[in-house]
């Protein structure tokens, strides 16, 4: 998962053709539709790469 649009695992189905209502919130705070530490870590890795300080992410 390099970008938020990439699926974290097979359970993520969001694409422009199969949209998920929770997509935006899921990017930063996900996964929302399932529980998986590895999937959460993938999102955190995307954030950690570019967050310039601890105030960067706004939830």
């Amino acid at each position, binding site marked *: 998962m390099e970008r938020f649009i990439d699926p974290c695992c097979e359970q993520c189905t969001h694409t422009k053709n199969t*949209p998920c209502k929770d*997509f*935006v*919130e899921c990017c930063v705070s996900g996964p929302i539709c399932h529980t998986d530490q590895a999937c959460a870590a993938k999102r955190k890795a*995307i954030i*950690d790469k*570019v967050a310039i300080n601890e105030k960067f*992410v706004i939830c």
Partner: protein
Amino acid sequence: MYEKHLMICGATGCLSSNSAKVQQALEEELARRGMKEKYRLVMGGCPGFCEVGPIIVIYPDEVFYCRLKPEDMVELVEKHLVEGEVVERLLYTGPDVDVPARFYDTIPFYKKQVFNVLHNSGIIDPENIDQYIMRGGYRAFSRALNLEPLAVCDEVKRAGLRGRGGAGFPTGLKWEFTNKSAGAKKYVVCNADEGDPGAFMDRSILEGDPHAILEGMLICGRAIGADEGYIYCRAEYPLAIKRLKIAINQAEEYGLLGENILGYGFNFKLNIKEGAGAFVCGEETALLASIEGKRGMPRPRPPFPAQAGLFGKPTTINNVETFANIPLILKEGGAEEYAKIGTEGSKGTKVFALAGKIRNTGLCEVPMGITVREIIFDVGGGIKGGRDFKAVQAGGPSGGCIPTEQLDLPIDYDSLTKAGAIMGSGGLVVMDDRTCMVDLARYFLSFTQKESCGKCIPCREGTKRMLEILQRITEGKGAPADLEKLDSLAFSIKDSALCGLGQTCPNPVLSTIRYFRHEYEEHINEKFCRAGSCKALFNYYIDPETCIGCRLCVKVCPVGAISGERKEPHVIDQSLCTRCGSCVEKCRQNSFLITRVGREADVSN
């Protein structure tokens, strides 16, 4: 993971000061040392302080480096990145700080600023949608999708947002009008045709945070029931257009634009229309005509665009900064938070572009209600070269001047209108004591006259007649009756012109007559321009008491009008002098005095 993030200003202002070469030099130095993987370089949005560009801000250390040159990069890498020391000589210095200032919070330019609209500028990579989402982006839109369209309009009304394009019409009300207009097809239009001389607020927002505009337009689309939008952006903003195109592609890929967005059954398509740069196309009906492929000319209202706008369909048109405010309002609790900033009648913040004879040129975001004095002296750092403040032109060619006596005027829509100026889109052009207010009025009127589309007679002919009178006055051919004629023409044009451009273009003339009538009278009756601007109405004279005979003026005079021995006072041959002012700019002794034509040494003036 990167050790540090190096945010380089990649906006047009810093790019013109060579920030791309600074970035290249930094990249090369990092590559030479094999350190490229450890540091993230971003050509980001504008931190606002154009005067001291190019700028690099290093995070998480929070160090603000400015006035950078490519050759500084070796030292910056060696000292800051390798040795962990701050490079003091590259920090901000100026007469307003005792010691070099390290970060935003210690630089006076930033102390009174409140970053709302500009909260992402210089912080995120504007070409990366993920970073916009990390900063809370598209959450307000997601929330709006869960609200009824009229509830979205209500939130915008409750926040008290007024249009940032100039007229200050309540945005939520405008949206409600379009929502209630009958029709299956409706449009959202973003006016990015920023045309005031000296104004670059919208350009900076577009370049630094393009997704904020997209999100604002999406929320508007949801509120009014539109499924299509246009961004009308002038072609002179290539970087803004490039970043908008990238943002639109990303939003489409992420399913935030297109069909059935986020599964709510809401569709929205966004187009960019590049404008050819006509000032009149900033007027909403002319802009709509231009999008339709017609000549950019205004038409009478009603019907208003909310009733019959683009292609005859109900349309909401707002400017860039207005749309950039929307995500702040529609986030959870946003309307209440938003309404806490500003004054009773003008809520939120306003972005201003500071230009002219001010020390800190650049972009600032301040709360509504701040005084003119605070903007000019606290944020802007006062007048360049220690000269005296004379006036500030607010609202560009449609606005008016605010003189010294009004320095404590609060900046809000109603106070500015009462003072004879307008908020406009936010351009502030500052004048010092060497500015001739008659010539300034002539300049702005010549701008609007050239930009008049010619459709209505009051604007087409009236501005031409006014300009002829002003031209006469600045050439020393003015007559006492001219002031009355100017006044009468100005009010006739204001009352009868077809569009906002015509109705407001006499403002610079009226406000300069109101506050600087004595200068007009001096030009007309005494044939004297004490500011030394109208070439027919003054002579330069070298003060023999202060001239040290350094010969700098002799070297720059293009017509050889200045003579004198080294270390002896120089003199000007008035028959040769063209009053170009090159000598005045060079003189370090301030020995050049302005005298009446025909008088050789009237130093009392």
